[in-house]
């Protein structure tokens, strides 16, 4: 265990922030307050946070369409995020990106991506920058199980290997790509694929923050010390539908209830740290209250924040034109 009390508190706070953020977006979407396609990360918190706890300001991540959790884990401002999701002018992307393109390059978060498999090539580039400019940085590509079958992802495995890039591929396997089971769509296995391209691969329980954290620590150290890319196959679950509005008819009866009870990353974390006497439940409850307050504020501010103005339509296309 290499994590300090502060680290543990931060990990929990980040995971709780993600959960609260997503639960709240779910509710507000249902009420009609949020436009567009929204994909929620609730249930997958231990992955984003377990990985990003190993990263610092030199490091970059690229996300998927399911990007809110990665944003929060990499240090983006939840209020700016909420405003973005509401399409407001002060949102992280000025309201032009929305949930699907939420990003903050100043935090090393290279964007959610509307294109499945869009991120891995970009991450190879971020890693190339780190390698070329000798910044010591590493770059992490989050990919879904569905995205693991995209050619862009598979090419990136090989490119990262032959260019010896400081990359970590994190395959977040939540069992489904939309309604299609990963058990069907993924031939072979993620770990074997990694190895077949010449890099180490591991599998971890993505409900267990500590398991993810440890695997990511090793992978990040591997990359940072110049040993090249590796892959982590994280098995986890999503609490909501593919996107908001999905009736989830493809899931088993009671599946979601069961996993919420039996495999909830936050609950598992609480039990572990309190049983090991690393943190007290009171402290965690306090964080819960603080986070709730933060997200309440974020929603309240987002609701009343001004939208973009007509002039904004034409700006930000080019640096100069």
């Amino acid at each position, binding site marked *: 265990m290499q994590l300090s009390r502060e680290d543990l508190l931060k990990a929990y706070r980040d995971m709780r922030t993600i959960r609260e953020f997503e639960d709240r977006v779910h509710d507000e979407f249902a009420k009609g307050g949020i436009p567009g396609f929204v994909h929620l990360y609730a249930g997958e918190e231990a992955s984003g946070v377990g990985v990003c706890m190993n990263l610092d300001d030199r490091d970059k991540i690229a996300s998927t369409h399911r990007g809110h959790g990665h944003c929060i884990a990499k240090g983006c401002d939840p209020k700016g995020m909420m405003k973005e999701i509401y399409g407001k002018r002060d949102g992280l992307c000025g309201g032009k990106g929305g949930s699907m393109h939420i990003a903050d390059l100043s935090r090393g978060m290279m964007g959610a991506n509307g294109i499945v498999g869009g991120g891995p090539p970009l991450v190879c580039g971020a890693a190339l920058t780190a390698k070329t400019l000798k910044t010591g940085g590493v770059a992490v590509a989050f990919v879904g199980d569905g995205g693991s079958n995209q050619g862009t992802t598979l090419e990136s495995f090989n490119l990262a290997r032959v260019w010896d890039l400081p990359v970590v591929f994190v395959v977040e396997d939540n069992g489904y790509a939309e309604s299609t089971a990963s058990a*069907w769509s993924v031939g072979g296995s993620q770990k074997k694929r990694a190895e077949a391209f010449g890099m180490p691969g591991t599998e971890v329980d993505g409900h267990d923050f500590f398991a993810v954290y440890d695997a990511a620590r090793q992978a990040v150290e591997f990359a940072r010390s110049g040993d090249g890319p590796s892959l982590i196959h994280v098995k986890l679950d999503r609490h909501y539908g593919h996107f908001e509005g999905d009736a989830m008819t493809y899931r088993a009866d009671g599946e979601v209830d069961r996993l919420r009870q039996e495999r909830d990353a936050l609950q598992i974390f609480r039990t572990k740290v309190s049983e090991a006497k690393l943190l007290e439940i009171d402290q965690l409850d306090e964080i819960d209250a603080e986070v709730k307050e933060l997200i309440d504020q974020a929603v309240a501010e987002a609701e009343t924040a001004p939208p973009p103005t007509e002039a904004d339509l034409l700006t930000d296309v080019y640096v100069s034109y």
Partner: protein
Amino acid sequence: MSKKSFRQAINEALAQEMRRDPTVIVMGEDNAGGMGAPGEDDAWGGVLGVTKGLMPEFGRERVLDTPISESAFIGAAVGAAATGLRPVAELMFVDFMGVCFDQIFNQAGKFKYMFGGKAVTPLVVRTMFGAGFRAASQHSQCLYPIFTHIPGLKVVIPSSPYEAKGLMIQAIRDDDPVIFLEHKVLYDDEEEVPDEPYTIPFGEANLTREGSDVTIVAFGRMVPFSNQVADKLEKEGISCTVVDPRTTSPLDTDTILECVADTGRLVVVDEASPRCNMATDISALVAQEAFGALKAPIKMVTPPHTPVPFAPQLEDLYIPTPEKIEAAVRAVAGA
């Protein structure tokens, strides 16, 4: 004849052709849905339900779910078309063409020519396009000018449920590769649509309004917008022809040129990005072939040269509206 939505019209076209011809198959991400999953088998019927119900009737051998591997499965549809099937492959959003365009434009589109005529590739690529869904920059594009640019491809843009059904049946029976573009905002539009199968030929424009002052050429969702404008202006004494070319490739140039010859004025309405788009294509055609008939400058109504923004306020400003079309028509009518 009964009221059907745009979505139902396409679904019915697919079902009827699959019944008629056992070589017609359908494939795409979640086109049946639920593949390998514990819950409902026919879970989605495509992300917006267009193929719902086909799998129960035709089975998973003819309604194939796919991994998220557009190059492989669109390419497989191309290869299947070249070897005896008539696949209808769904590229969920046309915005995803960037991960599979090669199989469409360099393979399907060129087989016949490269192989000296000795190939037929009766492929349909169904794909969703257009803004208005608050779906942001990577899920709202039109991109049909790109497909129209490519020799060897046919490009179809239905503007109503009736058009959608007839054009889809034609697309499936057609022996060339067809890109079939479905405007996502139109899916719930309804109108009377025959229950029997029927085809609408490619390269024959539809005059949805006939008038004498201004010709409006429009595509997809811009057709109902243009009809609205024509109806409104009719009352004020500005009489418009609205031309829905239905297919951008082949393009019914004769009808367009005849209408311009009659009216002497042209407005082209195109939801696609403004550079090298269908508005320029048709404007250029007319400037070359019917210059003498023109009594006023041509006007193009398009979005600005920007990606599609997310914020609803911005997206509404981005999309060509009936108001903008009306202003353009008034401008040329007054010129």
